C-alpha cells in the first residue's frame, strides 16, 4: 500500500497579541490508501487544527501554517494555488464535522445542498445530480430519500443530519474522508448506526479515513492505526491492536487507563494528574513531563524526538534509552 497523504513536520501557529500559540507543532502523519487512521487526544491537543490544516481551512488572519508539507498523492497542498485546491477540496478530500446541526445550511433543502456539490465538482446536469442525490441518501440508509431531498435540515434528527453529511461527503467518491468527531454529539445507538455506515462505505469505495476523536471505543471500532497527540505533537503511533495491548507512551497509557470499562470492574480509576498546560505557556522539555509519573530529570530539560521502533513510533526518553542499550 502506498501513501495517499503524507503530512511532514506540519506547524500551524496562531498569533494573539504578542503571543505565538503553537497549536500544531511538527506533526508527521501518513495515511495509506484504504486505511482508517484515528487521531486521538484531549481538547487542545491540536487534532482538529491538524485536520483543518490538511484542508487549508485555518482562519487567516489569526492562524497560519508556518512550516511543513501536506503531500496528497505527491503534490503539496500547502503550495497549491487556491484555484487548484478547490478542485481537490470537497471532491477528492471531503470532511464531516462534529455538529450536524450547524454544518448544514438551514435555508436550503437537503437536496439542494447535495446537488450543489455534484454540479460543481462532477459537472453533472441538474436532473442527473438529483438522481444521484437520491441514490446517495439511500446509500446512507434513508428509505424515503425521494421525499427527503425536499426537506429542510431542521426537520431531521441529529443522527439523520449526520447521515446527510456523510452522503454529501461521499457524493464525489472522495479518496480521503476527514471525519472530525463525527459521532460525539450523538446517542450511542445512533452512533452505532453511523459507524456501521462509515465502515461499509470506506470498504465499498476504498476510501481512506482520517478519524478525529477522543473516544477510544470508537477508535477500536473502525480504525486500523492510531496516532496519539498531546499539546500539538504526536506522542505515539501504532496499530490499534498494539496500542491497546501495550501502550508505550505514559500519556497513551494514562488515557487508556482513565476510561472506565463497561465490561469489567476496576475499584479505582487511574487518572492523569493535573491539567493540559495552556498552549501559550508550554513546559520546557517533554510537554507531558509535569504530569508524567515516570518523568526523570532529562524529561524536564530536553524534548524527546519521535523515534521509530518497528511498526510504531513513540516520543519518550524511556524507549530511546532502551534502544541504545540494545
Amino acid at each position, binding site marked *: 500500500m502506498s501513501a495517499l497523504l503524507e503530512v511532514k513536520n506540519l506547524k500551524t501557529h496562531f498569533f494573539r497579541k504578542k503571543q505565538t500559540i503553537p497549536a500544531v507543532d511538527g506533526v508527521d502523519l501518513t495515511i495509506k490508501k484504504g486505511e482508517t487512521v484515528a487521531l486521538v487526544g484531549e481538547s487542545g491537543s491540536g487534532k482538529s487544527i491538524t485536520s483543518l490544516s490538511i484542508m487549508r481551512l485555518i482562519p487567516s488572519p489569526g492562524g497560519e501554517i508556518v512550516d511543513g508539507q501536506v503531500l496528497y498523492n505527491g503534490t503539496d497542498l500547502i503550495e497549491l494555488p487556491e484555484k487548484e485546491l478547490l478542485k481537490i477540496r470537497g471532491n477528492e478530500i471531503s470532511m464531516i464535522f462534529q455538529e450536524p446541526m450547524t454544518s448544514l445550511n438551514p435555508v436550503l433543502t437537503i437536496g439542494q445542498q447535495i446537488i450543489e456539490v455534484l454540479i460543481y465538482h462532477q459537472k453533472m446536469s441538474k436532473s442527473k445530480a438529483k438522481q444521484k442525490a437520491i441514490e446517495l441518501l439511500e446509500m446512507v440508509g434513508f428509505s424515503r430519500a425521494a421525499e427527503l431531498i425536499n426537506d429542510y435540515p431542521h426537520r431531521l434528527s441529529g443522527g439523520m443530519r449526520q447521515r446527510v453529511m456523510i452522503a454529501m461527503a461521499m457524493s464525489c467518491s472522495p479518496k480521503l474522508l476527514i471525519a472530525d468527531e463525527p459521532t460525539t454529539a450523538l446517542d*450511542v445507538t445512533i452512533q452505532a448506526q453511523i459507524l456501521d455506515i462509515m465502515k461499509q462505505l470506506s470498504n465499498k469505495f476504498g476510501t481512506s479515513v482520517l478519524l478525529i476523536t477522543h473516544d477510544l*471505543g470508537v477508535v477500536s471500532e473502525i480504525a486500523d492505526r492510531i496516532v496519539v497527540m498531546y499539546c500539538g505533537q504526536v506522542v505515539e503511533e501504532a496499530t490499534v491492536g498494539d496500542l491497546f495491548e501495550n501502550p508505550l507512551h505514559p500519556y497513551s497509557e494514562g488515557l487508556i487507563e482513565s476510561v472506565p470499562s463497561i465490561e469489567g470492574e476496576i475499584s479505582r480509576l487511574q487518572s*492523569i494528574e493535573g491539567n493540559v498546560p495552556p498552549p501559550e505557556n508550554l513546559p520546557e522539555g517533554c510537554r507531558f513531563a509535569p504530569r508524567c509519573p515516570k518523568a526523570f530529570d532529562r524529561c524536564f530539560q530536553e524534548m524527546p524526538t519521535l523515534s521509530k521502533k518497528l511498526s510504531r513510533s513513540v516520543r519518550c526518553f524511556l524507549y530511546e534509552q532502551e534502544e541504545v542499550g540494545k
Partner: protein
Amino acid sequence: MSVQAEKSPIIQKTDTNNILEVHELKKHFPIKSGLLQKTSGYIKAVDGISFSIKKGETIGLVGESGCGKSTIGRTIIRLYEPTDGQILFKGQDISHLREAELRQSVRKNIQMIFQDPFASLNPRKTLRSILKEPLNVHKKYSGKERDEHVGLLLEKVGLNASFINRYPHEFSGGQRQRIGIARALALHPELIIADEAVSALDVSVQAQIINLMEDLQEEFGLTYIFISHDLSVVRHISDRVGVMYLGNLMELAPKQDLYTEPLHPYTQALLSAVPVPRKKGTTQRERIVLEGDLPSPANPPSGCVFHTRCSAATSECKQIIPKFKEIKKEHYVACHLYN
C-alpha cells in the same frame, strides 16, 4: 386485562433505610400553540416512575437524549413541579411543599451538580462569593466561620485555598467542576444529584472527578443519583442502575446484574451499541442495531413505549403497558417477555 394496566407500587412506603422514595412520578410539560397560547398537548417527559434509594447508595440513571433522565433529577429537587406522584425524602412527602418549606427541609439536604461547568457558575462572582452564597442564604455559620468553611471546602475538592478571590473564567473545565462540587457540598447535603457531571470533561480529568466524587461519598456518607448517558461511567460509579426510555423506567437492577444479564431488549441494544477499546485478538461483541429514531414524547407509542423499535415485540406489546415488576431479587423490568 384492561388496556391501561395499572402499575404496581414496587416499594414499601416508609422503609427507614430509604433516603428517597419516588412513587409513580410524572412530569408533563404543556405544549402551547396558537395566538392565545392554548395547551395543545403534553410532552410526557417523565411518565410514571417509581424507585427508591438507600442511604449511602449510588443509583445511576442512563438513557439517550430525551428519555427524561434530567427531568427526573430536576423534579426530585423540585426545580420542576411534579404533575403527579409522590417524592418522599426521609419519609416526608416533599412533592407539593411550598417554597419556604422547601428551603427549610429540602434544599439544604438535596443538592445538584450540573453538566456544564462553564454555564453553571456566575462569571461575575469570585469563588468566595459563589461558595459563600449557600451559607448566607441558609444562615449557616457566623461571618468568620463562613470564610473558614469555604477554605475547607476548597481543600476537600482539591483546589488551592489561594484561589479564593479568582473568577470562574480563570479555571479549566475540570477545576470548574470541582468548584461546582464544592458548592454542592457547602451545606452538608445528604443526597447529591449529579446530572451529566463529568460528560463535558476530557477523559483524564473525568477520571479525577469520578475519583473525587467517590472519595467524598465515603468521607461524608453521601447518597448520589448519577445521571449520565455514558454507560461505562455509570457502571463504574453506581451500585444500582436504572435504564430509561421515553419517560419510563424500563429496567432497574444492581449493576453487576444489569450489565452482565440485561433483560429488557432496550437495555440489551443500548449496551451492545457501546464501542469498547479492544485488545488484539479479542472479538467485538455482537451488536443489536436499533432501527429508526426515538418517537416523540408528545405522542408516545401505545402499550410498551419501546415496541416500535423492539425486535421481540408482539401484538400484546402494542396494546398493553407492561408492569414494572421484580423478576429476580432487586431486578425490576417492564417487559411482557418476562411474564
